[in-house]
């Protein structure tokens, strides 16, 4: 007999696998049902490149014709749709994500992701952690303090959280880059080739400060509003009134409230990854920071169908994994799930 918690985990695992299939299927389907047949266009471009007829715009790649054949074979583009889907899925899982049209040398998409993902993670993870910690602290502080602190704090946090990130970075760039000239006006670390060298990392860090500040600031706004609401909810709960009636001091009540309010915030931490990733894309695109956002903007600009498919599927995978982790974590944190809900009958 499986415990209810095990059942919870199995349930969630199954759900997320289904969700992943759905996301992958959507990604497979969309380009194929869109008007204008992007895949045809993709192959056509490759064909043209093989023929060397596109001339001045795209550099002619001799092996493009070979590549075209390879793509048709690899993705079974001459086979029926369902075979195509499974072939595509298997290829995706194996890391064969096709070749990107967005770059003249037609690199494999997976190599691009390997190159552009680390700078993005370098932005996302620290900003997520910092804004989560600071935001929760601020939110709890506002809620527990009440009065003016709460009123002013809440209004300003609401305001901050409503600033579009892609605009805030413009303002920050103007202040620190254009006016004071202490930070770079664009996210591109010069003409350096992305590598693991010390110089490159130093340059990257220098260009990392502004986007990092932007998404962290806005993140703090969101987290603190959420935490404040949760803490206030807890403070108004009946168990809080009862604990107070039993003479437990204010600091203990605050601790109870914080402990119960932080559980949903833990979950939200992992779940926010997707939204943050999306918001971050815009910041990167606007600032030109060499992360997934910039990559995506190049790929979208060139209508690089395989690039899009792969990156969207990869992003969806990352987000689903984050949410899956969050759900499992929730199960561990909340005793109502960990120990199972049992209807106790006397």
């Amino acid at each position: 007999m499986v415990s209810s918690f095990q059942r919870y985990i199995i349930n969630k695992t199954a759900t997320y696998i289904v969700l992943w299939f759905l996301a992958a299927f959507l990604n497979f389907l969309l380009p194929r049902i869109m008007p204008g047949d992007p895949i045809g266009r993709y192959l056509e471009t490759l064909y043209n490149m093989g023929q060397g007829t596109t001339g001045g715009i795209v550099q002619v790649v001799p092996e493009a014709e070979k590549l075209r054949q390879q793509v048709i074979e690899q993705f079974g583009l001459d086979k029926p749709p369902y075979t195509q889907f499974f072939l595509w899925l298997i290829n995706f899982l194996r890391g064969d994500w096709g070749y990107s049209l967005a770059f003249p040398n037609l690199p494999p998409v997976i190599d691009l992701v390997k190159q552009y993902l680390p700078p993005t993670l370098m932005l996302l993870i620290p900003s997520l952690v910092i804004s989560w910690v600071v935001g929760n602290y601020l939110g709890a502080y506002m809620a527990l303090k009440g009065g003016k602190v709460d009123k002013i704090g809440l209004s300003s946090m609401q305001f901050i959280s409503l600033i579009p990130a892609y605009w805030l970075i413009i303002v920050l760039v103007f202040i620190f880059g254009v006016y004071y000239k202490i930070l770079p006006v664009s996210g591109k670390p010069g003409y350096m080739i992305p590598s693991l060298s010390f110089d490159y990392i130093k340059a990257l860090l220098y260009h990392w400060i502004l986007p990092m500040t932007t998404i962290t600031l806005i993140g703090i706004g969101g987290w603190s509003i959420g935490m404040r609401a949760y803490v206030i909810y807890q403070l108004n709960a009946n168990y809080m009134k009862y604990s107070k009636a039993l003479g437990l001091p204010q600091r203990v009540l605050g601790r109870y409230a914080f402990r119960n309010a932080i559980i949903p915030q833990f979950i939200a931490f992992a779940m926010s990854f997707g939204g943050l990733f999306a918001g971050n894309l815009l910041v990167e695109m606007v600032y030109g920071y060499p992360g997934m956002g910039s990559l995506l903007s190049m790929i979208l600009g060139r209508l690089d169908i395989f690039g899009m498919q792969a990156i969207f599927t990869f992003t969806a995978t990352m987000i689903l994994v984050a949410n899956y982790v969050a759900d499992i974590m929730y199960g561990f944190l909340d005793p109502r799930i960990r120990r199972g809900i049992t209807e106790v009958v006397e």
Partner: protein
Amino acid sequence: MGEPILSINNLTKTYALGLARRRYVKALDNISFKINKGEFVSLVGESGSGKTTLARIILRLTPPSSGEVIYKGKNVWSLSDEELRWYRKEVQGVFQDPYTSFNPFYKVDRALSVAVKKFLPGEDEHVVIRKVLESVRLNPDEVLGRYPHQLSGGQLQRIAIARALIPRPELLIADEYISMVDMSTRVDIVNLSRDLVDQYKMTIIMITHEMNMALYATDKMIVLFKGRIVEYGDTKKILKDPLHPYTQLMIEALPRIDKNIERKILQKTLDAQKKGLTESVRGCRFAYRCPFATERCFNEDPVLEEIDKDHYVACWLHNRR
């Protein structure tokens, strides 16, 4: 007496509980009884006895798992659309919470006028509404034109009864209709119900956890315990001589002014409780608390038996076979 107006035959309702681990709970377990026209019947039970489920099944709001409800010879759960309209005219209900029984968006008038439109098309709304409000002893001018949150629980519950009376039903199911009304006005609603039975030959099933009110006003009494009927019969007989230990307990536990009242059964029940027995699956549901339980009670299910005229009990203590 003749043909009963309502008969319940082997009614069972099972609920599945829990998402992760399914458990099945029998809210009603093989219930059968008959009700004659013009009787004021009380269905008494504590929370978890299944009394509200029973009310909802009779009112055709919750489907039963098995068994049947026969009203005037027709199976209530297999009525045609037209028969259902007839059934709604004949059988009406009043619910527990007067505050949620009315749509907060509308004035209370609407509940009444809609009922007139649906059930008595062509009749003068105003006349019907005023008459029916007067019959539940409300001053129409005091309640009409008001929103539900502007009225007291007692007033709302009377309007709910008035609404139920509009189609001139034969059977009224009153599900815990006094439990949320102020203490000092409960008895008036029970009195009103008694008068409806006496004056209009209506049949009323009053579902309640208040033994006291049931003993005070009703003709017949059905005592439920954990989805089963434990005792059923003439209220006066039950008041004078309750047979089932659970009924005895319920009556004995009623609060009295007398300080030194002896509560033998209750005391014994409390002692029995300390033994920490668990509920029997095969036998009598009350056995684990019963001060008189024998081994048989735990192993064999007692059946409802007529001990006296109009007095049934399901208990091995009274088994004559």
